[in-house]
């Protein structure tokens, strides 16, 4: 079996370790990972600022980038969700529309994809850590299985204590363009989130959404209470090696 790796722009340049971990976990589960060239941005930023023209252009690019058949796996709930939105960007009956439907059907958020693979229940990962999981609101729109997949995978890691903030699914206040236009509200929300997370005294912060990780860990750093902020894939990959790396 093979899968195409869809690397979100934030992961490509700011958290490449997450994508490396995705490769490690998939290969451990005997999935051959291909990495199509030409990836930049899926169009989410344009789409969420109301710039449909650019969103459509970028979506059309990605239809080409991921034209080859086979599942597409992405370590970001919001980017995977964006690809699932592609069909709405093209008129029904056009070839783009049918290709968008096809791509949406075979695009998966990393955790939901892994949880559905044979062997996922017995990964054998082991990591002694107290992990605070942030269930990004961007994963909530998936099926219940999809939203629960990260928790399921983390619970399968021996030695890992899974804790969740008081309001686990509450938005961390990022919201892309929102955080730039409504800075004060965004800050108030990330403050709430950090307070609730710190109250749990975790060793690490884990999420399946890179943008939430960036937002929350960035504020924790400014508070002088930094925490390693990891994608679920990084925790699994470390657990497979059975050693806690010097998290960066």
């Amino acid at each position, binding site marked *: 079996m093979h899968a195409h790796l869809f*690397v979100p*722009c*934030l*992961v*490509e*340049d*700011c*958290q*490449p370790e997450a994508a*490396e971990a995705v*490769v490690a976990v998939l290969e451990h589960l005997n999935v051959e990972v291909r*990495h199509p*060239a*030409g*990836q*930049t*941005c899926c*169009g989410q*930023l*344009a*789409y*969420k*600022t*109301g*710039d449909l023209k*650019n*969103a459509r252009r*970028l979506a059309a*690019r990605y239809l080409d980038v991921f034209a080859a058949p086979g599942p597409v796996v992405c370590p970001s709930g919001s980017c995977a969700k964006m690809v699932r939105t592609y069909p709405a960007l093209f008129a029904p009956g056009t070839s783009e529309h049918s290709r968008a439907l096809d791509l949406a059907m075979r695009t998966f958020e990393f955790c939901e994809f892994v949880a559905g693979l044979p062997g996922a229940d017995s990964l054998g990962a082991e990591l002694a850590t107290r992990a605070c999981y942030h269930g990004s*609101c*961007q994963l*909530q*729109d998936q099926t219940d299985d999809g939203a629960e997949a990260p928790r399921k995978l983390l619970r399968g890691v021996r030695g890992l204590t899974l804790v969740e903030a008081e309001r686990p*699914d*509450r*938005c961390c*206040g*990022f*919201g*892309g*363009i*929102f*955080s*730039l*236009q*409504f*800075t*004060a*509200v*965004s*800050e*108030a*929300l990330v403050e709430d989130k950090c307070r609730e997370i710190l109250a749990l005294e975790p060793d690490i912060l884990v999420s399946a959404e890179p943008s939430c990780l*960036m*937002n929350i*860990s*960035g*504020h924790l*750093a*400014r508070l002088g209470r930094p925490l390693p902020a990891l994608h679920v894939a990084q925790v699994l990959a470390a657990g497979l090696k059975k050693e806690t790396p010097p998290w960066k």
Partner: protein
Amino acid sequence: MEVTTRHFRQSSARACRDVNLRAVLDHTTRYFQSKRQASLETFEGRDAHFARARAARLNALSRLPELLEQLEANAIAAGTIVHWAADAAEARAIIVGIAKAASARVIVKGKSMVTEEVALNPALEETGAEVWETDLGEFIVQLAGEPPSHIIAPAVHKSRQDVVELFAEKLNLHGESIPELTLLARRALREKFLSADMGVTGANMAVAETGSVILVENEGNIRMSTTCPRVHVALMSLEKVVATMEDAADLLRVLPRSATGQRMSSYVSVLTGPRGEGETDGAREMHLVILDNGRSEVLADPVLREALACFRCGACLNVCPVYQTIGGHAYGWIYSGPIGTLLSSLLLPRSETRDLPFGCTLCGACKRTCPLSIDHPKLMLALRERTAGGGGNPIGAAHALLARHPLAYRMAVGAARAVDPRLDLLARLPGLPGLSRFVDSRRPPELKTPFTARRRKKTQKERS
């Protein structure tokens, strides 16, 4: 009230800094959420009831013109006088006309968002009449000269001490405890009910097949307003009509649970015409004013019209992280929270509301909570698109331009990495105020060796 939606960004920032407000909002929204949650846990067949409620609302919207005509005909047959108001000014003129014809000197009002929407009170006061809000929360905000801040609990932003001082100052009534204050309001308003010539209410729904108006409340002030005064005027925004009493019953099963966690609100009144012959109370004259005020235009938009399905339970406000943080007033008009953002954007001039749909993280908590499954984020995006009008935010547009050209994109990121790997400087370039503020409170991520380069290196190593 004055519309200040165009200052949404500034007023939301101001609200964030109000520590007392934040505490009140935290308490309020948690209170409503827990009440609602507890009630839904024991709600047998919840999903089916929700789906029926949604169908009842959508069915009504799909047949709106026909149902309104049917409502009108049946209301007239029941003895109700029906009026049509294209906009707020017409609604005011109609109701002022009714008040004048009835020589109304004292007018009592039940809680109604739509009477706030058309700014009815000042117009009625100009006739020389006393106008009293009679819902306790509305009464408090009326005395304070403020607009309501929550659909269900208009005065949640006021503390007991605020009310103590307000009653002393405005009414010369002195009480300390909350039950005492409530009793003072009861006595003061009881007098008004008994001397009122006219009662004005909104309408939670109206039933086309019977011509009935349905009013839902907990205090009894709406029953008082429709029982004691000679004249009752119900102002209804046109989307509130439903086809049948059966549909209304389906909605009544869901509305109180979703709003306050009650199985049924304390009082539901089904009013069909003025008092019958031989009855000793109830209004002798009943008016139904059907208000458009921009809604009919929305019906042609296949995405945005879903906002008209809302029956104002307020549940989306309580779960919205933005509302939880800034409260209702910051939105700049009577409607607040996720549904308020949508309604204000649809009913007010576009130039006034450009920022509203961007004051949302698109987290979807509203959509997951809405008993009618209104997809607020989807509508929010449609409004953003309408606002952007083809163009986008400058940062977004620049990013999109680069993203269309992978080589240029890589070069841009490479250049950034060379000069500012910690992204501390770029974010502070002039012209990007949001970004610099962002990095003030979040340490920006580092630009690292990209994944693609790492992978290439690894593959080469494995090959050699």
